[in-house]
């Protein structure tokens, strides 16, 4: 199990940030990714694996229509 935006998610082996974003259909471009409070740069998404127990934040920066 890991947390995504403070909600529980089932842990999967070899789940990268890229894959998680795909699974969640998080297609909006302006977002920040943090794992256990550390920023992950977009060029590290495909090589960063989510571990069991991680606290993942994917914050979308959209506050306006």
């Amino acid at each position, binding site marked *: 199990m890991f947390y995504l*935006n*403070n*909600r529980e998610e089932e842990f999967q082996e070899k789940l990268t940030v890229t894959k998680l974003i795909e699974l969640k*259909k*998080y*297609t*909006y*471009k*302006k977002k*920040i990714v943090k794992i256990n409070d550390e*920023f992950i740069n977009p060029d590290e998404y495909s090589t960063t694996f989510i571990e069991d127990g991680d606290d993942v*934040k*994917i*914050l*979308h*920066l*959209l*506050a*306006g*229509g």
Partner: protein
Amino acid sequence: MKILKEYKYDFTEIIHGYNNRSLKINLSDMKIESKQISEEMKQKFVGGKGFGLRYLWDAVTPETKWNSPENEIVISSGPVGGITQYPGSGKSIVVTLTPLNDTPMDSNVGGHFGPLLKFSGWDALELQGKADKEVIVYIDGNEGIIKIMESNIETIDSHILSEELTEMFAKDETDKRNYSIVSTGSAARYSNVAMLNFTFYDVKRKKVRLKQAGRGGIGRVFNDKGIKALVIKYEGVKSDLNNPANISKINRAGIRFHKEMNRYDDEQNGMRKIGTANIVEVMNDYDLLPTHNFKFGSHKDIAKIESKVFIEKYITQNIYDGCWHGCSMSCAKAADDFKIKTGPYAGHKVIVDGPEYENAAALGSNIGVFCPETILELNFYCDTYGIDTISFGTMVAFAMECYENKVFTKEDTGLDLSFGNIDSALELIHQIADGRGFGKIVGMGIKFMKKYFIENFDADPKFMFDIGMEQKGLEFSEYMPKESLAQQGGYGLTNKGPQHDEAWLIFMDMVNNQIPTFEDKAEALHYFPMFRTWFGLVGLCKLPWNDVTPHSNKYSKEPAKMPEHVQNYVDIYNGVTGKNVKIDDMIEESERVYNFQRIFNIRMGYGKRTNDKIPYRSMGPVTIEEYLSREDRYDKQLKEIVGYNLTNKSTEEKMAVLREYRESQYEKLTDAVYKRRGWSKDGVPTIEKLKELGMDLPELVDIVSRHL
């Protein structure tokens, strides 16, 4: 044209963003007067929407209706309006009592009229009374002359009328850029959702462009006053006309922003390519795109209307599209030489201003239309007929759902109004403009339609109120609030009704889960509406605030607020006015006006808790098909949050429990928000709150005392 009245005025210097006077024109007796603006007026109401509301309050009584002669249309930019260094500085706000429910409506608009009005010597324009014969009001800001002229022009629709007037008044091609026209279109004669078009002259295209004060039927009031058009001329726009207190502060903020736009826009929102329509597919991916009258949040045919289609096939690229000078966000996109297929302009090649996101959703997915050319054609006709695109889409979507539920039939209306029926959608728009057929009913808005369908077609009142997406008479704008309680508040706990310009919290709430508690949501429903109100006080467009994100943002404590951009606003506001405010002071300025508007609503009979209720369609699934479309989500919520045992339960039983839960959540949210805003349980600003804000004016205390 025959001149009915002429008025000459002297110029005064603009000091730190203000002329310190406003112009009042009464069309009944043709009286034109200049009014001083006091320091107190500026301190309490700032400008723009604040000035509009104050003047409107003074003009009307609780008995005034939208078509009473004393109702006013007030147009005002604001102290920052008209600077050219920072993007989005050409907005004005239009205020009037709306035909939808006779309460104050405000609508923000681009185009050049607001800044040119200011540079012509006026911080606001009040239009009161009704002309006997149709008139054109002309303001020449260089000569210092105002003329009221009897109109001899037959043209009604905005795209031709504004071209004709620009041609008629400008002395040559170069002079056209100095003009802005305000007009409405055919629909304003009959429809409660008629809007105003404000122009700017696009020097590259050599065409007049239209920007809309869309919401709340202001075009109908304009037409009722007998105004054909307002024409303003001011030659000589330059960056320091506001006589700012500290121009270098403004320049620095502008340079920072322009650099950001250049650097990040392509990889972020692509505002310069497609404007706000960049989020059509984003909303679909997050299940937030209103589809079939807000039943669903996505559709399998989305690829047909995603932004790429408009970019590749229709919207002219690589051209500057700012709706005021210096707007590097440049999102006022347009389709050039678009060939119209139906109606009075069939065969014409026209320029279509848009589509913005709202148009694509309202004229597309929400009515089941997934055809880009139909969206553009409806967009064009909405604009030229003077119809609010958002209301049109939400109204037609409602009518379509009623039709599919056999509230009425084709025999009753002459139209097959199934979702996605392109011919019927187009026929409806022409009918609305001509005030004929079923379109005449639809054009009156959902509030009217609900009553009409109950009285004439025996419609079930509960179903009408559940699926009719309006509140306070205003149709919902185009975001699905169903799965975001905070956004339900963002729509429902507003002054003018469900328009997202007060708060847009769906991502913060539903996706990011940053505001989980009622208190968190209430804080957001305090801060964001106040922050966003401020744009309308000073003359700014809110898009540059958050449609590009600076690099520093990710390191900030509150990224949703865009602190670096907020600091830019502090700088330019202080730079123009010479004030020394901080963000908290700006929020307080907004709070004064916001509470004033709330009390104005109460004065007109519409501003309490009962008026903040929203249709259940905006909170949860009304129909079985809606429940089943998100069954997993709803079942999970019932099981895990409500603690409801789902075993052997029918969908109807589950829906009833879910409804009870969601409605109770909205009530709890309402309590929390009222508390945070300093209002009573019934939504009335308390006297303590008014005192704290310095707004314990006798006329306000008098109203609230009667309701506390």
